[in-house]
């Protein structure tokens, strides 16, 4: 049962990583790409870490360390990139014909 759950979590995590990268390709703007590339990939990585933890119960401490690290640094890094972009003068994308507010 634990093995099945772990394998399922690994699959879900891999799928989320793939979808995040797909969003990175498909989105129209840098800010949208930051969204797709950070949120979905964070979710996928945490799913993969939890799945490996279910498959190998003795690895929990190191896996928790890696998971905490991803959870802490990934949002910080993406928000640092977004702030740098905004300060260097790149404005968010608008649909054609929409007035800039």
């Amino acid at each position, binding site marked *: 049962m634990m093995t099945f759950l772990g394998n399922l979590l690994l699959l879900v995590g891999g799928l989320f990583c793939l979808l995040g990268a797909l969003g990175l390709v498909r989105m129209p703007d840098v800010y949208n790409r930051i969204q797709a590339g950070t949120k979905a990939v964070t979710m996928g990585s945490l799913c993969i870490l939890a799945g490996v933890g279910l498959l190998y119960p*003795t690895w929990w401490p190191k896996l928790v360390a890696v998971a905490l690290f991803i959870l802490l*640094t990934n949002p910080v890094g993406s928000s640092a990139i977004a702030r740098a972009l905004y300060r260097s003068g790149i404005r968010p994308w608008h649909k054609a014909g929409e007035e800039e507010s």
Partner: protein
Amino acid sequence: MTEPMVLLPLLLVGAGVLLALGRLVAGPTAPDRVVAADTIAVITTAAIVLLAAAFDSALYLDVALVYGVLAFVGVVAIARAIEGGP
């Protein structure tokens, strides 16, 4: 215990890295490339943990942790460089 089924997740993760690599190569501006590199780094951290499960060796977890730390420092440094200023 039965062998963990890591081949399919590794294929999915590898396809994700390839897609992000396409954005890294084709990205119109430098910020696009930075975002793509950040995403590739996080996906690679997860992939190294998958490799630890595939090779049944806990040594790779340390590699994943150090890789994540170095990638984060690099991304923040590039963000500072884009921002400019003092």
